[in-house]
């Protein structure tokens, strides 16, 4: 009985896909290298001369090194990836061709075998010329099968060698001092909530100590508020409370939690909400970046309203002065606009946060309570007491004959 046709292995993957990855890796590497160069110039005080500028330079000192290492990873990977893509393309074609030849020849062999069986069944012997001709044709097909198998093995071996060579080069690039530690990888694998709490707690100290202090105070109050919710209303669970506690360890602000809760959620044109999957830690970081963006926008807006040449240093090329007139009117109008837009955005935020599930809803609610708490903090400091108003002196009535209007 003829064995069934066995399909030869074809090289898997996509040369086009690998080339796209190589292009993206090269572009990202160039951007990281550019950013590292820019940060080196900033560190050297190119734009900011003064005590704050020096502090800025010190705080940014390690960033270029990390970016430089990352750029080395990305830029170094582009060439071996392109080389792999070329080999993948060539050997994928070769294995495909040999697999097709093998399948065709094997199919023809099986067909010839069926015809031989039919002739033998009709009474002919193996020595009959018709049967002998079919056997010779079978031998030719079998030779093709063997050649195809040999060619397929060789193509697979060439690709495997190139794959291993690329893997060795890339693995060497990954062996640097920004690689994730084994401890970090272990913590990451401990599940979604544990992952978020664990790796957030391992992050370095925040750069701006003053805001970190305020953030830590606010988070403390917020965690207590969550505890109150749990004890008073039976909402959530102790495990859920860990989200707030982990964010507290990071020093994430309430605003960052609120923005993080809505990160990855997009309001569609039809009013629905599309959600992407993000871990708790990534959401907190996305919220921190979004908060920083909004504050930068506010700082920029302050600068944008200044007219030309209005400040002392404007005479020397510095920033200009804001118009002094009607500032109060503008501020009131801006306040009303802000209140309206906040009301609308709060409704949208709530929908976006709810779309991400229970975790994002908890983050959002924790963020709102933390933000309210941190705003209330300065008020908890008792204001300086005003001196008690002195009681008016009650003078005795003037003696007879004296004027009551005598001055002092």
């Amino acid at each position, binding site marked *: 009985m003829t064995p069934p046709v066995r399909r030869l292995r074809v090289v898997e993957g996509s040369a*086009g*896909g690998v080339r796209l990855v190589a292009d993206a890796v090269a572009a990202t590497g160039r951007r990281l290298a550019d950013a590292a160069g820019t940060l080196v110039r900033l560190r050297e005080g190119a734009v900011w001369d*003064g005590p704050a500028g020096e502090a800025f330079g010190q705080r940014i000192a390690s960033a270029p090194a990390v970016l430089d290492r990352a750029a080395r990873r990305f830029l170094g990977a582009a060439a071996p990836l392109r080389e792999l893509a070329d080999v993948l393309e060539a050997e994928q074609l070769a294995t495909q061709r040999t697999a097709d030849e093998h399948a065709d020849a094997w199919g023809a062999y099986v067909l010839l075998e069926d015809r031989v069986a039919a002739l033998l069944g009709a009474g002919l012997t193996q020595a009959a010329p018709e049967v002998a001709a079919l056997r010779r044709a079978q031998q030719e097909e079998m030779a093709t099968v063997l050649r195809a198998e040999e060619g397929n093995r060789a193509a697979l071996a060439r690709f495997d060698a190139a794959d291993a060579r690329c893997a060795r080069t890339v693995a060497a690039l990954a062996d640097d001092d920004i690689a*994730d530690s084994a401890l970090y990888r272990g913590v990451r694998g401990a599940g979604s909530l544990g992952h978020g709490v664990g790796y957030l707690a391992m992050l*370095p100290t*925040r750069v*701006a100590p003053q805001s970190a202090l305020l953030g830590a105070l606010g988070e403390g109050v917020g965690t207590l508020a969550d505890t109150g919710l749990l004890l008073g209303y039976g909402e959530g669970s102790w495990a859920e409370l860990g989200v707030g506690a982990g964010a507290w360890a990071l020093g994430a602000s309430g605003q960052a939690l609120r923005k993080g809760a809505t990160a990855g959620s997009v309001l569609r044109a039809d009013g629905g909400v599309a959600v992407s999957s993000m871990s708790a830690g990534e959401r907190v970081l996305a919220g*921190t*970046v979004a908060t920083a963006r909004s504050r930068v926008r506010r700082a920029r807006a302050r600068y944008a309203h200044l007219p030309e040449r209005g400040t002392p240093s404007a005479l020397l090329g510095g*920033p200009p002065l804001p118009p002094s007139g009607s500032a109060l009117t503008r501020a009131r109008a801006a306040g009303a606009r802000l209140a309206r837009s906040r009301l609308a955005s709060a409704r949208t935020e709530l929908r976006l946060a709810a779309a991400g599930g229970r975790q994002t809803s908890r983050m959002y609610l924790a963020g709102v309570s933390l933000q309210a708490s941190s705003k209330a903090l300065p008020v908890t400091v008792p204001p300086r007491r005003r001196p008690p108003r002195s009681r008016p002196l009650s003078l005795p009535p003037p003696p007879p004959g004296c004027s009551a209007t005598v001055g002092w």
Partner: protein
Amino acid sequence: MATYRVDAQTVLEVGAALVDLGGALASMGDPHADRWAFGPGPAGAAVEELLGGWRHARLGLAEALAVLGEAAAEAGGAYVDTEAGLAHSLHGGPTA
């Protein structure tokens, strides 16, 4: 005595650029999504490790840059306010 030589707008723009860079680092995609292109061989795993195996440093740097950029932008805004207040006082008005 401290001396200052500050271009407030540049400091603001530096802050914005740092926040942008921090945001880009924070939102770098998951390299596992492109693993299929490499097939089942060791190169795909190595590339995934290379591109994704510095996550701790990446996210830490992203956060540091976002916070530092925010601080720089706030500082730039504060310099603008100081300039404006000083100019106002020099023009005869009260300072804030």
